[in-house]
């Protein structure tokens, strides 16, 4: 069983739950949902890939599961955006597991996927909370109690507290149930937390002055979540500077320490990994590596998106392609674009 597997399952199950999108690739599931005979709790049972404890959490928090699905999608999209120019481009496979075996091993890539997933869930649940979709997150549960009196007396806690707490219970439970003794579980838990920290440590504080005549005599501040792109950027930086660790026993507890003792120990926000990554060059279905054959590359770049590195020295094809592009467009703020079609010829480089 692995983490991404359940993400994919959540995505599918969400189609069951909502089926609002007409472009649903799984039509019959959408049809099923319109029957409306599936009770909510049953849906939790049908989500393959969830462990028993998660099914229980799902049953108890059915209203949150849609945001979990959205969070998973958000994480996949962001991962693919951040890695669009790399050999491993966070591609999801049609067959399970979603991200291939790369993620089932304790690689750097796995560290990123775990971190962005737990961040995505925390982000989406927080969002849902602030749009009033969730009844349970209405008011602070930890400090003042859930009562309306608590709200009247001192207001509510931040939405993010609920989002993070939910991500902790739902995402981390997989590792915790395995027993946190294995080094993989420790690594995953650490990276999950690092993902959430990427949100928490980048919260923006915004303030409004509303004293006499709008003076700052009275000022109210609140915390706003960073845009998810920013979270992705932060985690990508952490990915580049991830620490290779190994498990060691200190006293009676097992902890992860840097493999190279000369490196300074990692913090809560850093990503850690156990195994080094493959080079992702050749197609290797057994390990879930797609290879870079057929990938587009940049002829002029010397970086990883350049043809030299991307194609692993195998060389590349160049062809002239006519692309139909949109140009001189007129936009509305939503949903309306009126464009001319411009055709242009571009050189396209593809790895052999």
């Amino acid at each position, binding site marked *: 069983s692995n983490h991404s597997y359940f993400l994919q399952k959540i995505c599918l199950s969400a189609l069951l739950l909502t089926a*609002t*999108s*007409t*472009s649903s690739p799984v039509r019959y599931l959408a049809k099923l949902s319109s029957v409306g005979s599936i009770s909510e709790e049953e849906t939790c049972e049908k989500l393959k890939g969830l462990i028993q404890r998660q099914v229980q959490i799902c049953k108890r928090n059915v209203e949150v599961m849609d945001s979990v699905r*959205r969070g998973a999608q958000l994480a996949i999209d962001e991962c693919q*955006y951040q890695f669009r120019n790399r050999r491993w481009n966070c591609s999801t496979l049609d067959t399970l597991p979603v991200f291939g075996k790369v993620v089932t091993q304790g690689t750097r890539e796995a560290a990123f996927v775990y971190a962005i997933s737990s961040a995505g869930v925390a982000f989406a649940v927080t*969002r849902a*909370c*602030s*749009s*009033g*979709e*969730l*009844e349970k*997150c*209405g*008011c602070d549960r930890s400090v003042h109690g859930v009562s*309306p009196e608590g*709200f*009247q*007396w*001192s*207001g*509510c806690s931040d*939405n993010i507290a609920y989002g993070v707490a939910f991500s902790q219970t739902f995402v981390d439970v997989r590792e915790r149930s395995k027993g946190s003794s294995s080094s993989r579980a420790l690594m995953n838990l650490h990276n999950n937390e690092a993902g959430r920290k990427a949100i928490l440590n980048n919260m923006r504080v*915004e303030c*409004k002055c*509303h004293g*006499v*005549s*709008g003076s*700052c*005599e*009275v*000022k*109210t*501040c*609140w915390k*706003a979540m960073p*845009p998810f*792109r920013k979270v992705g950027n932060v985690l990508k930086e952490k990915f580049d500077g991830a620490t290779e660790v190994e498990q060691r026993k200190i006293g009676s507890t097992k902890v992860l320490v840097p493999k190279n003792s000369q490196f300074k120990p990692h913090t809560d926000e850093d990503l850690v990994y156990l195994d080094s990554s493959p080079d992702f060059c050749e197609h290797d279905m057994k390990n879930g590596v797609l290879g870079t054959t057929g990938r587009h590359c940049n002829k002029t770049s010397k970086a990883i998106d350049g043809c030299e590195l991307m194609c692993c020295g195998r060389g590349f094809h160049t062809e002239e392609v006519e692309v139909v592009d*949109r140009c001189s*467009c*007129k*936009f*509305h*703020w*939503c*949903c*309306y*674009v009126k464009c001319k079609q411009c055709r242009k010829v571009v050189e396209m480089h593809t790895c052999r």
Partner: protein
Amino acid sequence: MAGAIIENMSTKKLVIVGVILLIFQVLSFLVGGLIAPSPTTAIPYTATKCVDIRKYHQKWLMPGGRNPCEKIQDFKEATERHIEANDIVFAVHIPKPDLEMSSWFQFMLFVLQFEIVFKLANQIDEAGVVTIDASLAYRDDIVSEWTPMAHSKEQRKLNCVFPANKTKKNEGLPYDCDLLPFMEVGTVAHKYYLVNIRLPVNERKKINIGIGEIKDIGLVSIHQNGGFTKVWFAMKTFLTPSILIIMIWYWRRITLMTRPPVLLEKVIFALGLSMTFINIPVEWFSIGFNWTWMLLFGDIRQGIFYSMLLSFWIIFCGEHLMDQTERNKFSVYWKQVGPIVFGSFCLFIFDMCERGVQLTNPFYSIWASDVGTELAMAFIIVAGICACLYFLFLCFMVFQVFRNISGKKSSLPAMSKARRLHYEGLIFRFKFLMLVTLACAALTVIFFIISQVSEGHWHWGGHTVQVNSAFFTGIYGMWNLYVFAIMFLYAPSHKRYGDEQSNDLLHREDIQLTTTITHVDGPTEIYRMSGKEAQE
């Protein structure tokens, strides 16, 4: 000849009074810091994107509850379904599900934040102005219909900057947009509120064109915490009779005298009156009545008190300095009091333009239009200049008083021992009061800075100290105690009244002194003394 209590009190008694006041001061800080929650709460909301289906033509679109609107998750979905911008309504239900608003919240104000993503082809115009069609409704139970409260078409200037390079690579990154004032309601009389926002597009009139690609609309509601309101009310209810009693006592003492009250006495009484005016807890009525003007009324009361306090300082200094032929008339101080009156008048006009207009249109904001912003800035700058002018005058006067005192000090050794001791005591007490005033002002400034800088609450052992609440109750208590102390210490001394024929050496000396300047009829010795100085 009546002297003030401060002159006739022994140092021991003065210390006792000081300690009692200090205890109350500490109490007022503790009440805010330990009992009250933070003064205000901000709740961030993300607007739900509803589709306004024409065939149903619902008037109010709700994000959840019994009759929820048809929602879309993002605008990609809307594009696929050929929904137009004009069919989209941003709906926010206040408060969150399962909770209800309360009149203890006193006021509600809303801040609007647009989440606009950067698209190379669809950028925000230089002067991106968004036209908002906003409406507000309320209801008191979850089954009844929504009752409209306000509806308006407002314009707001989007102040957005893009934090990265405007390249293809950075598409999808959001702009950093300024918070926009959205709405202010001076009373929270209902349980549930609903905000519906539309951003109508009209290409011909260039309405809502060039505002980029909106992804989400965030709304932050700010209201006063019910707990803070309760503590605040309790404090006001306790302070009102305290100040009222000392005020009556003070005025009785003055009317008991044979002479009519002098200017300084009248000003102190006026200070007490304005303090009582601010103290009277009329806010209790906001719990039962739907009085939207309470916020404005509170501003006016505060304004009156502050201008009274500033005028008092000027007159207090001036009356210890002026020539006897000029002083004791309010008109003498026009030059110093003028800036105060003019400055507070400017702020009053500004407040009327902002909160006054909000009584009829809660969506109005003077900062929304360019002309309004300039006008508001003009008012505030003029008020600022007045404040500077005032403080220059005040500092100059304080300097003059101290110069006069030091002049007097040099002639002290030539005096008899009793007389010298008497003068030294007077100077000490005058300086003491000056110091108290300075300490109060400094404390206000320091606490203001702390409350601005700190996160709002400190953890101290197992307790959470609400710094902001402590600031409000502490400073409010402090100025109450200040006014209390002034009325108490500057009331005419009773002892003096009866003891006029006393054989006490000090008093005989004093009578000698006063007989030399019998025509001077001031409330304090130092006042007489400096009056004499000015004569010389």
